[in-house]
Each structure stands twice: as structure tokens, then as C-alpha cells.
């Protein structure tokens, strides 16, 4: 007995190390492009046009301390800028308004200078100047609502891709996996490295290995971590806390080697909106929605029509019964993790495509994924898909009523309301309430 536990422990440790090595290998590749050491202040200048981030190039930013200029930088084609600092301390950051393009202005004209930006030792401090169209022409209400609806569908499509795995993994193992967020980020980051840093593959080609890596990372963590923990009969709530630790470690590993700066995929960056039926739509939004719907349809077909899919549903509904009728539940669980990982990575690439690739992007999306899963009824696949689109549309359309920095909060409030008043989800599956 002792040796068995020992070997399980050994496997777990070995597995964790292996998982880390994989991440590190990807990360070292990223660090090759070099982060400058020491403190710095930087940021990304962009404006939102129909929900898309459009970088703003050629704007001069001046950093000074006690009235003395320390350095300045000009935003590049991706809108990013960076000023190296002599050391930690308090700095003021000024945006030179005369260098802004004609049609771009600060959303808050009083905030050209940000005083008292505190930089701690070793910090790469990010500073935000919010830019927008300088109150030239506001599009008509209907057009704006319709355009926001499309943006919402796009966000919903991304949430759906990411959340299916979360929902299925919960359904077959009972685990609420907080580390799912990092599968999303890793997918986006791996695609970025292959696309913009290393071999410079086109994004579409770089996305394929990213999705495969996502499947591998999902399958791998099941094999090396979760399966041994289930064998040790660790409680589900403890496993949830473990997943927080795993997510935490992975997130900061990504930060160390990828850096804190958000970056955009060069392909399809700054794509212009074209009117479709009078609604301004950015083509990549439509592609995102189209591909996601096709993939979600395929997942549905897989679950309904194939033997593996039927096995998965059997394990979900009653794993003991499924096993007694000859289904290898452990294999089904491993398959679920692989599928969930691949879908999350794909969702990450799409999220990076329309927003930007950032070390904590998955974590930003995680709570909205929970919202989708719970809205749809925890553990149900179609419910999760529906929940994702509801959350996506609600979040994006809420900017009609609240400042845009609060739109995520709207999604989370929706989540809390559903948890309070209809915990079984909108598409109710009664027996899942406790």
C-alpha cells in the first residue's frame, strides 16, 4: 500500500515537472526576443472602433520625474510604447496631444498628463491613455445597437469555445477547474510565438499547432495531475484549490517569459469595418462567429452521433453505471480534457485576434466562462453554448448604458443574479440542483 501511494506521489511530482517543462520550453522561446531588464513604463495606445482594438501609431509619450524629462517614446505600428527608467520611484507621464492623428482624441481631454505613477522595483508599469474618436460623428442608434450585437455574438462565440471544456470537465469529473483560463492564454501565446516571434508562420497556420498543444496540455494535466489526485481520493473542493494553484503558477510563468505587454497578432490587425446591410462589421468578427458556430456544431454532432460522444454522455450522466456497462471512464475523461484543452486554445487564438495577446487574458475571460456555464445550467453542453452567447451579447451591449470599463462587471452581475434566483440555470436540469 505504502509503495503504491509513494509511486502515485512520484508520478504526480514527475508529472507536474513535465508539465512545467513544456510550459518553460514554450516560454524560453518567447524570452529569446528579450525583455529589457529593470523598471520601465509602457503601454499600448489604441482606440475602439466598433469593438475592435485599432492601434494608434506615431504618438509621442514623455516621462518625467520632478519636472525633469527622463525619456520619451513614440508608439509603434502596434500602438505600443516603452520608456526605460533609471529606477523605482514616482513619475509623471504625458501624452503629446499634437502628435495624435486628426480624428483621434483622449476620451477624457483633461488626462493628457498622469502624475504620480508609482513604479516599484523591477516593475514594467503599464499606463493607459484612453483614446476615442474625437466626438466627430456618432453613428445612428440602430446602427450602433446592431454593431454592438455583432460584437456581442463574437464575444459569445469565444466564450462558448473556451467554456465547453470547462463545462464538460465539470460534468465528467466534478472538478471546477480554475486553471482552465491558462489553457486559453497558452493557446493564444503559442500561436503568437509561432506567428510573430519565431518562424513567422501566417496566423492561420500558427493556430493549428496551438490548438494541438492545447489538447496536449489538457490531456497531459489530466494524466499527470488530476488522475493521480482522484486515485488518492482527494476531495473535489481541495482539487478546486489545487486548480487555483496550478493556474496561478502557469499565469505567472507566462508573465515571466512572455512579459506584461499586450501584443496584437500582426495578421488582420487594424482590419477596417465594412458595412453589411448597413451595419459596420469587421470581417474577422464574422469569421470568428462562423468558425466557432461550425466547431460548436461539430462538438454537438460528436456528442450525439459518435460512439465516443455517447460514452462521454454516459459517463457524465452516471459514471458508475457507464463503467459497469463496459465504458472505460478514465479514457473518456482523458478525451474530455484533450477536447476541452483544444477548444480553449482555439478560443484563446480568437480572443487574441480581436483583442490582444496578454498574460492574464484567460483569467479575464474565466469568470465570464463561469457565467456562461452556470447560466446554461452547469454541466449541460448546449446550455453552456446558449449561456455563452447570452453573456457575450449582454456584456457588449451593456456599453449602451454603462462605461465600457464596467462591461465585464455587467456579465458578473448577471452571473450572481442567476446563481441567486435560478441556480439550476436558464435551461433547467432539475436533478442537478442540490
Amino acid at each position, binding site marked *: 500500500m505504502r509503495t503504491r501511494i509513494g509511486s502515485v506521489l512520484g508520478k504526480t511530482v514527475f508529472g507536474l515537472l513535465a508539465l512545467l517543462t513544456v510550459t518553460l520550453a514554450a516560454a524560453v522561446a518567447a*524570452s529569446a526576443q528579450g525583455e529589457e531588464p529593470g*523598471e520601465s513604463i509602457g503601454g499600448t495606445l489604441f482606440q475602439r472602433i466598433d469593438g475592435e482594438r485599432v492601434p494608434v501609431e506615431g504618438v509621442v509619450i514623455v516621462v518625467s520625474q520632478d519636472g525633469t524629462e527622463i525619456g520619451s517614446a513614440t508608439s509603434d505600428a502596434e500602438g505600443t510604447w516603452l520608456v526605460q527608467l533609471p529606477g523605482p520611484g514616482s513619475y509623471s507621464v504625458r501624452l503629446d496631444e499634437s502628435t495624435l492623428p486628426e480624428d483621434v482624441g483622449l476620451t477624457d481631454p483633461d488626462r493628457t498628463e498622469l502624475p504620480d505613477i508609482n513604479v516599484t522595483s523591477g516593475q514594467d508599469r503599464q499606463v493607459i491613455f484612453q483614446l476615442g474618436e474625437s466626438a466627430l460623428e456618432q453613428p445612428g442608434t440602430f446602427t450602433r445597437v446592431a454593431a454592438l450585437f455583432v460584437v456581442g455574438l463574437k464575444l459569445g462565440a469565444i466564450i462558448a469555445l473556451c467554456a465547453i471544456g470547462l463545462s464538460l470537465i465539470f460534468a465528467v469529473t466534478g472538478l471546477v477547474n480554475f486553471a482552465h483560463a491558462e489553457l486559453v492564454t497558452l493557446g493564444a501565446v503559442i500561436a503568437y510565438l509561432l506567428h510573430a516571434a519565431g518562424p513567422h508562420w501566417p496566423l492561420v497556420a500558427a493556430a493549428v499547432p496551438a490548438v494541438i498543444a492545447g489538447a496536449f496540455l489538457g490531456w497531459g494535466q489530466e494524466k499527470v495531475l488530476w488522475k493521480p489526485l482522484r486515485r488518492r481520493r482527494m476531495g473535489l473542493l481541495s482539487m*478546486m484549490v489545487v486548480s487555483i494553484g496550478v*493556474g496561478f503558477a502557469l499565469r*505567472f510563468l507566462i508573465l*515571466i517569459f512572455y512579459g506584461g505587454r499586450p501584443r496584437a497578432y500582426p495578421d488582420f490587425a487594424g482590419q477596417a469595418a465594412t458595412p453589411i446591410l448597413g451595419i459596420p462589421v469587421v470581417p474577422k468578427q464574422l469569421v470568428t462567429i462562423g468558425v466557432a458556430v461550425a466547431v460548436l456544431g461539430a462538438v454537438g454532432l460528436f456528442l450525439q452521433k459518435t460512439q465516443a460522444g455517447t460514452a462521454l454522455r454516459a459517463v457524465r450522466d452516471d459514471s458508475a453505471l457507464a463503467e459497469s456497462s463496459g465504458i472505460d471512464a478514465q479514457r473518456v475523461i482523458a478525451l474530455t480534457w484533450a477536447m476541452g484543452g483544444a477548444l480553449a486554445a482555439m478560443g484563446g487564438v480568437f480572443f487574441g485576434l480581436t483583442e490582444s495577446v496578454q498574460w492574464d487574458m484567460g483569467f479575464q475571460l474565466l469568470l465570464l466562462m463561469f457565467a456562461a456555464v452556470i447560466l446554461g445550467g452547469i454541466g449541460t453542453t448546449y446550455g453552456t453554448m446558449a449561456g455563452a452567447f447570452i453573456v457575450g451579447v449582454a456584456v457588449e451591449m451593456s456599453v449602451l448604458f454603462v*462605461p465600457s470599463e464596467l462591461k465585464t462587471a455587467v456579465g458578473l452581475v448577471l*452571473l*450572481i443574479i442567476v446563481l*441567486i434566483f435560478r441556480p439550476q440555470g436558464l435551461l433547467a436540469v432539475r436533478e442537478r440542483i442540490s
Partner: protein
Amino acid sequence: MDLIAALGSGLSAAIGPVAAAYAISALGLNLQFGYTGLLNFGHVAFMLMGAYGTAMTVEAGGSLWLGIVVGILAAVGLGLVLGLPTLRQRAEYLAITTIAAAEVLRLVVRSSWATEVTGGVFGLQGFADEFFALNPFTSSATYDLGPIAVTGRRLWVVVVGWTLVVVLTLVMRKVIQSPWGRLLRAIREDEDTARSVGKNVFARKLQALTLGGALGALAGALLAIEQQNVNPDSFRPEITFILYVVVILGGAGTIWGPVIGAITFQFLFFFVDTLMRDTQANVAWVGAVISAAGAAQVRFVLVGLGLVALLIFRPQGLLGSRKEAVVGA
């Protein structure tokens, strides 16, 4: 490698005001998670309430002491709002509701809507003068405490902070050893049994959640006073997870666990930090693999791995007994 410097920075952090605040906050989380088994993943929200309650009251013209009371009451209110609807449901629901609520609060506090009262992304500063006016030490003087030296300003916060820690822990011991405290542990072990002998499980859970939240708020107020600064981004979800590490490291469901956990955690956190920076700057191959900014983040990776390792290898933490381990196998 400069081990002495690393030990010094670890030691100084271990007795520092932040460690005291973490200990108080962890005391609250331990009551919720360690003794009652409630998965509160939004503990940082209670700290935010305490910190902003204090700062905003002073900003509005009230006294600092009134501010601390307001902050604690706000946290109790938050506990009721979150607990009333979710404590009857499954454990994961409380977890997700609390983490979501904590993020909503942070986003609202930093939004342009709230800038008038909360200072938005810049936060509020310089509201704790009343506290430092009582300082019996000379603020700018340096005091020698054995291996480390602290300023009079910091020493004042340290003395008040750790006095609070000791008093609150002793009170907590009384509370836990009372019939009320025993019932909490019974709920943790088997909710249905507690209910079947006629105990009001829901009310006890709600009391544990709000009382723990009040302790979180006090810790938040202490942090805010020490820094004379509140900023929404000091209240990111990571803080909650760090507090889980503190509680589990010390021993969930033990009296002194949160205190030992906070001291040990802060020591290791800053020891590793100083060591990593030093290694990064002076060992060539490490410097080639990792940037200076990256070296500063290594400790967060270790926090995550430490949490996983603790749950697998020593779920009872430093002080707990394996038999009564709250988490783990």
C-alpha cells in the same frame, strides 16, 4: 549569493505590517474556510470594503476611527448580501459568487462612474494622519530591533498591528472553544448531521461568513492606514489566493495557523524575491534565461506551486493534525 541580505529582507517582511494584516485577514478566512468549510473565494472584497470604507469616510469629512467602523459594517453588509442567497446552495456556488462579487466591486471602484468618491484608478491618499498623530515613536528616527532596523513610523504600525493579531487570536480561541465554535466544526464535518440534531446550520454559516468578513475588513483598513493609500488594483483576486496559501500553510482549522502562516509566507515571499533578484543579476545563465522584471515574478509562480504541493503533501499545514485536515486527501 547574498544570503544575509535575503534573510534580512525576509525577516523584515515577516514582522512587517503587511504580515500582520495578512494574519488578521487569514484569521477571518480561517473561521470561514478552516472551521466552517465555506469556500469564500472573494475574501479580498471584504478587505476592499474595510480599506475603502476607511478612506472614503475620511474623504467625506468623518474621522478615521469612524471610517474603520464604517468599513467593517460595510463588510458585514457584504457578507449578508452574499451569504443569504448562496449559503443554502452547493459549495461551488458560494465560491463563484464571492469571486465574481469581488471582481465586480473592484471594477466598480476603479470605474469612471465612481471616480468622484473612490478616486478611480488613482485611488485615495493621505487619510490616516489621525493614526500617525498618536505615534509615540519618532516617525523619522530609526530603531534597531536586533538584526533589522525600522523607522518609527513603521514601528508604530507594527506594534499596533501585532497587538491586534494577538488579541484577536486569543478572542478567536475563546470563540472556537465555545459551543458555537464546536458547532461550526460539526457543520464542516457533516452538515446534515448538525441539521438533524436541530441546529440552525444556515444561521451559523452566515455568522461565520460575516464575522470572517469583518476581520478581513479590519485587515484591509490596517493595510490602507499603513500605506496611507487605497488603490483598486491592490485588491485583485490574487490576494484571496495568497490568503488561502497563508491559511493552509499555517494549518487550516487551527488557532495559531493563520498567524504562523502569515509570518512564514511573508518571510519566504521576500526571501525568495531578494534571492532571485540577486541571482538574476549575478549568475550569468540565470540572467540569460530570465529578465529582472521576470525574476520579481518568480515568487508568484512558487506561490502557486506551493499551494499545489501543500495540498498534496501536507494538507494539514505546519500546525494541523493530519486526522483533522480540512483539505487534501
